């Protein structure tokens, strides 16, 4: 029996042991009784694309960044005609979102304004993007320069002799504010270009679909993509390092030694090895500043970067060494991809009515222009900025724990950012008066309880959506970014869905069969055997090397523009994305058939 609506957000039970979870999040992120009438009428879906796991209180900042910035740029800055922002609520530690449509009667006026404002950007796109890179890199340097050390017993001499005029305690308060504000500022820039970029990209998609109703998403993407962008650079650097290792005669040692620390120690003992390690270290900043979250990168403080855990990129280097030894090429076939892009573009173009070819060319040119940003901003912001933000947050947590504000550094992440500001003030005040901070005693029971709640929340399986589903979902950003369509929602509502069949979005064409390998954390990546079907919440660019081994990919979240879909198309692997529950449904070892052209995963043998 299919239900006609999802549970009301006001009737979702609290999991056993998670009572009081609401205290972990800011009040404005919770469903409140005073808004029940409005919020109960809205359709909310679990944003597993950006936040597949329970949020730590501190990590709520990640949601806030895009909640505000996406909203402001759609609603207030560019007057995106059909769409306002995307509203957010947290239920049992999971983020639910709802796109807010613009009132239909406003669309025409907004379109006129959008034409002027976005038009200004489109005309100057490359120049604006150059400026953009400069200002974002400046922000990156700003937070890299922040230092969070335990406060000194005595101020350094320069405070006095250079007449600085303020104390290390004040600077800790100030620098935490700066850290947060800088991240917020960067998010303004993130959405300065993103959604108007997507609008151009979507337009090209729509054009192709109107002329060629049967065309695959993959073909349209191929006409736009295939550019040389920085997003692929980290993986290219690993390939380069693998070739260097062969040149220096180090392949065998790198392949034979499991652990990164002992490998690097061993390599440093001779000239060739030391040369390679030095190369690795030079490359690591910035290219290994890569988050490893399964999903949207940078969403959580808990995942290491490649630089934090060199075993992750080393596994890739070993894989490339293996392929080099087999005589297979490891370079991305960029020239072929570009040649194919040009070939199919000419092919479809030729089939258009002649009068429309100029519009097609113009729109394609704009789509290609914006696409560089759509891909590269992920590296600059989702990876570099967030990796640095989390690293600085960890640095702060270590300083506060060292000063006795917390029992251990990880405690800090169980506090909301406003509470962290309180903790810093308490710590600084204690330091200033020559006493001890009160925080450890004050926070200890609160943090202990929140740790229990966090564990209880993680065991909860969130419903895919809440509230009444809309009759149709055609808001272009929802469809494109989250891969959520009218039919996805209908599928969620069907409790009698076909046994052994998972449906998602056709991310990359082709049909293969193979054994499932469920991966939810990057530490599990080395267990992947060649020919496995990778089943994951989502993939991250840091996982790139596994695409040389797997036969296909199935993800819980993502649409045709998700990382999984893009990379699989590039590697020629079938992918079904946005299945919703592949990770919780499929078991490692189970044989499945993945039809990336139809978006269907079929279980061939139950386990």
């Amino acid at each position, binding site marked *: 029996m299919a239900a006609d609506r999802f549970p009301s957000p006001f009737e979702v039970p609290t999991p056993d042991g998670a009572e009081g979870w609401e205290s972990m999040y800011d009040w404005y992120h919770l469903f409140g009784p005073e808004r029940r009438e409005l919020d109960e009428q809205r359709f909310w879906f679990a944003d597993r694309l950006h936040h597949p796991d329970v949020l730590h209180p501190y990590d709520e900042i990640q949601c806030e960044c895009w909640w505000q910035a996406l909203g402001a740029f759609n609603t207030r800055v560019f007057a*995106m*005609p*059909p769409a306002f922002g995307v509203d957010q609520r947290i239920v049992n530690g999971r983020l639910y979102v709802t796109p807010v449509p613009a009132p*239909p009667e406003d*669309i*025409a006026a907004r*379109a006129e304004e*959008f*034409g002027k404002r*976005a*038009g200004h950007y*489109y005309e100057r796109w490359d120049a604006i993007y150059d400026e953009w890179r400069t200002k974002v890199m400046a922000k990156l340097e700003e937070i890299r320069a922040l230092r969070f050390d335990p406060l000194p017993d005595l101020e350094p001499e320069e405070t006095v002799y250079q007449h600085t005029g303020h104390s290390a305690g004040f600077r800790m308060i100030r620098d935490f504010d700066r850290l947060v504000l800088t991240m917020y500022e960067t998010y303004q820039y993130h959405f300065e270009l993103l959604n108007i970029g997507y*609008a*151009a990209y*979507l*337009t090209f998609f*729509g*054009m*192709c679909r*109107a*002329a*060629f*109703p*049967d*065309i*695959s998403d*993959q*073909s349209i993407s*191929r006409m736009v993509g295939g550019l040389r962008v920085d997003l692929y650079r980290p993986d290219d650097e690993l390939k380069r390092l693998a070739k260097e290792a062969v040149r220096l005669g180090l392949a065998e040692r790198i392949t034979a030694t499991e652990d990164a620390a002992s490998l690097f120690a061993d390599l440093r003992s001779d000239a060739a090895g030391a040369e390679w390690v030095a190369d690795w270290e030079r490359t690591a900043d910035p290219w290994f500043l890569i988050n490893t979250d399964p999903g949207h990168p940078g969403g959580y403080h808990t995942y290491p970067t490649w630089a934090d855990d060199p075993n992750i990129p080393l596994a890739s280097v070993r894989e490339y060494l293996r392929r080099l030894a087999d005589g297979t090429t490891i370079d991305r076939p960029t020239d072929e991809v570009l040649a194919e892009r040009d070939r*199919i573009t000419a*092919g*479809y173009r030729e*089939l*258009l*009515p002649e*009068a*429309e070819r*100029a*519009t*097609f060319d*113009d*729109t394609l*040119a*704009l789509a290609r222009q914006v696409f560089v940003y759509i891909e590269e901003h992920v590296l600059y912001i989702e990876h570099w900025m967030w990796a640095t933000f989390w690293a600085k947050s960890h640095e702060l947590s270590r300083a506060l724990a060292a000063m006795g504000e917390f029992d251990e550094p990880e405690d800090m992440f169980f506090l909301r950012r406003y509470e962290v500001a309180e903790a810093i003030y308490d710590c600084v005040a204690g330091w200033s008066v020559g006493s001890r901070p009160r925080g450890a005693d004050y926070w200890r029971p609160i943090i202990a309880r929140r740790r229990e709640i966090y564990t209880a929340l993680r065991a909860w399986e969130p419903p895919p959506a809440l509230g009444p589903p809309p009759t*149709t979902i*055609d808001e*272009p950003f929802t469809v494109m970014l989250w891969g959520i369509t009218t039919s996805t929602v209908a599928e969620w509502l069907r409790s009698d869905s076909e046994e052994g069949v998972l449906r998602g979005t056709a991310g990359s*064409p082709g049909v293969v069969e193979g054994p499932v390998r469920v991966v939810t954390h990057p530490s599990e990546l080395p267990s992947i055997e060649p020919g496995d079907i990778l089943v994951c919440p989502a993939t991250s660019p840091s996982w790139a090397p596994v695409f040389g081994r797997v036969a296909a990919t199935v993800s819980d979240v993502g649409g045709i523009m998700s990382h999984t879909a893009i990379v699989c198309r590039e590697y020629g692997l079938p992918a079904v994305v946005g299945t919703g529950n592949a990770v919780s449904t499929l078991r490692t070892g189970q044989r499945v058939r993945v039809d990336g*052209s*139809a978006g269907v995963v079929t279980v061939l043998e139950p386990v």
Partner: protein
Amino acid sequence: MSPSWIVGLDDPAAADAALVGGKGAGLRRLVALDARVPTGFVVSTAAFAAAMEGAEDLEASLRDVGPDTPLDVLEQAAGRARAALLGASRSGLVLEAVREAYTALVGPDTRVAVRSSAVGEDAAGASFAGEHDTYLEIRGPGAVADAVARCWASLYTARAVSYRQRAGGDAGAMAVVVQEMVTARAAGVFMTLNPANGDRSTVVCEAVWGLGEPLVSGEVTPDRFVLDKISGEILRREIAVKPTRMTRTDERPGTVVAEVPPEDRDRPCLDDAELAELLAVARRVERDAGTPQDGEFAVADPGGPSRIHLLQTRPETVWSARAPRSATGATGAGSALSAVLATLTRTTRQEGSDHGG
């Protein structure tokens, strides 16, 4: 015997549609394109004219037939015309020439398909689809000559007569194509656009096990494949349950309907390599013709590479008459910005009806 009675498909003279009919000229074009076409010849319109020379007025019985003529009266009148035609052609040099040409083709036991090829059929703008006869798995000089005569006579089937009444034109001249039978593992039809929506970037193919005739006549549900002309992707595969197939028997000429082994019934009757080959040849044919085409093909047993034979192609007549689908919908052409604005202001209602056809 005049040499132009029998025209080989490898003879450039077979390009003359007035001589070899629409189907014959179409096959000649495919041969000239280096497409794989079963060996054969055309019994030309000149041969038909020679065979009819001195015959009584064949259409005498049809004089009084009109749009309101009752069906049984029409049937009787058509039957008399056919009988007159068969009587006139039975003796004479023309069918003797057909018997010789058949024997010279590949030997006296070869199975051939005998298909009518009327002048004016299969032209862009008018499809006389299925209005004339086809005889499959014909063996032996006498049987072939007989089938040729029956093809001639099919100018006067009741349906052909009434079709002409609607579409206009006189019976005209009839050529007949005689081609070696392909022992078909699978066969089907293709169209170089999607007839459901006019998408010109696709080739839609339908196919069944065995000979394609039950599919062409609409008796069975075929497998259906939608291929992307540009990217080469197989966009959709709809696999039908195919319990029977039309095939030859070794004992006697003609066709039989046989059971498909259970394990093959719900299996695709074309594999990816065969689809790729079909796509390539369909594209070549379309490019050469300069307009969307449909056609029939067979995969020679046991399938595999280089086994796709084209049996006929002709211009698609429905969508080709219209402009290609629009990429910009009602908004017309313009700058990228105007296209973006159109996308962002399109309502659901417009989404549903933006249709270029």
